[in-house]
């Protein structure tokens, strides 16, 4: 399948990845090779086959709908790169 640079940029934007011009060229070439590789599945007769979505055999795994205390605020903030004592900080969203 032929891809345009715009196709790749659209996908990269959906995935929140940015590509330099050089990387864009390399990604386009890699994607074309990989798509050619996975294209093979189009040969399979699959019209009457139901998709398999869940590989595990247990159905309806239920648990009590009860709130539990799992992470303290201190711990939850521990791994954030930018924070103050109460919140994770991000750049201003509204002007």
């Amino acid at each position, binding site marked *: 399948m032929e891809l345009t640079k715009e196709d790749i940029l659209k996908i990269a934007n959906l*995935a929140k990845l940015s590509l330099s011009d050089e990387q864009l060229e390399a990604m386009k070439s890699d994607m074309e090779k*990989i798509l050619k590789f996975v294209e093979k599945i189009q040969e399979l007769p699959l019209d009457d*086959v*139901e998709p*398999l979505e869940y590989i595990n*055999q247990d159905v309806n*795994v239920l648990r009590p709908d009860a709130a539990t205390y799992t992470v303290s605020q201190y711990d939850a903030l521990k791994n954030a790169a930018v924070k103050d004592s109460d919140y994770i900080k991000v750049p201003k969203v509204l002007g």
Partner: protein
Amino acid sequence: MMHYTGLRRWQESLNNGEFSCLDAVNHYIEKIEKDTHNAFVEIFYGEARERATVVDQKIRFGTAGRLAGMIIGIKDNICLKGHRVSAASKILDGFESLFTATVVERLIKEDAIIIGRLNMDEFAMGSTNKTSVYGPALNPHNKAMVPGGSSGGSAAAVAAGLCHAALGSDTGGSVRQPAAFCGIYGMKPSYGRLSRYGLIAFASSLDQIGPLTTNLEDMALLLEVMAGKDPMDSTSSSHAVEPFSEALGSERKYTIGYLTETLEHPALDPEIKQLTLDTLDHLRQAGHTVVEAHLPHLDYLTPVYYIIATAEASSNLARYDGVHFGYRSPNATNMDEVYTLSRTEGFGPEVKRRITLGTFVLSSGFYDAYYGKAQKARRLIVQTTNNIFEKCDFLLTPTTPGTAFPLSKVFDDPTKLYLEDIFTVMANITGIPAISIPMGQHSNGLPIGLQLMAPVFKDFQIIEMADQVSKLSTYNPDLVNK
């Protein structure tokens, strides 16, 4: 320090007071520090020594658990509370686990000692260990060769005698392929047999944690300790846990199938093919029935795998947004840049390729043609596999088409490396158990592994049969640790 040959013998020496767990831990720490295979990315000094002291006391009081004194390394995508975990990625730079993985908790409860975290391909995406942010782990048989991947550090560490056993994770062969390349045992249990809670997700419907060991007795015991339902992972199975250790020593005769398509595959090394044929002959001579089986879908497996795995990965890895944890780009000035620049600077090239493919196959206009079709193909492959297992109890195949290849080998096309998984992805696509057994030595001096597969939840039987197959092995483990 005594050479490790298996936990039972090791515990005899501990119980006889020949040495203590603390002596052993210090010995292994020294060994890891001097080692040059880049297998460990961090030693848990305090944790390991503290646990060793506690276990020594328990041994004195006669209250030690079943894994007392076993020194275990964990792949860098399995969590231990209060310790770093990074999936060998810059994007998890500085991240510290808030929880302990259920399987690790169960190991510790039986007095195993977790000595550190092990190198791997970034986010478990790779077959070489070369995509790691820490640089590649090296093959203990020949440092110019890859140890395999993605659990390359786990396999290298066990093969080099840096720990007694290791945990890896297997999404498309990531435990079995490095085990084969490094001459040890590596198993992917049935999907749902072990809890995935505390494993950094790559492709949730394919991922399964698995042990890497030097012998099957340790493998069986580790599975026994770790297996079973976990309320924290709804995909963990409620299927009863069998006493896997009791599977050893059986002489029960079985029907073993071989897949003509694997043996006739053009990529298969002739010596590996011969070893597979010889092993089948020996099994026949030992009284087992050997039958031919067919998997006409063999060449479709890897494409199906790459569509499903990357689709799930693109979704699972969406959580790395630079906000809640891990790396945040210092160059970001607005919210969109926080996401985009953190991900762009934090992920390596292979991870970006797979996220991009996964995003593509899930995107509007392509979903049905790729992801939808792959899900249908998955059912077809499950049905074919079920049919195969109506005629035989196990399948025996090579684990990999070749032996470990040079680190310097360049793949101009990423899909050439994806073919490394051709014999292993079947077990992940279908959820069945599979184990790689070190069976022989190639004329190039590198180990060869053969793979045994069984129907889903026949994990007990696969150990039973692997034990019988391993007795035919011409692999000499003494060549390791040199």
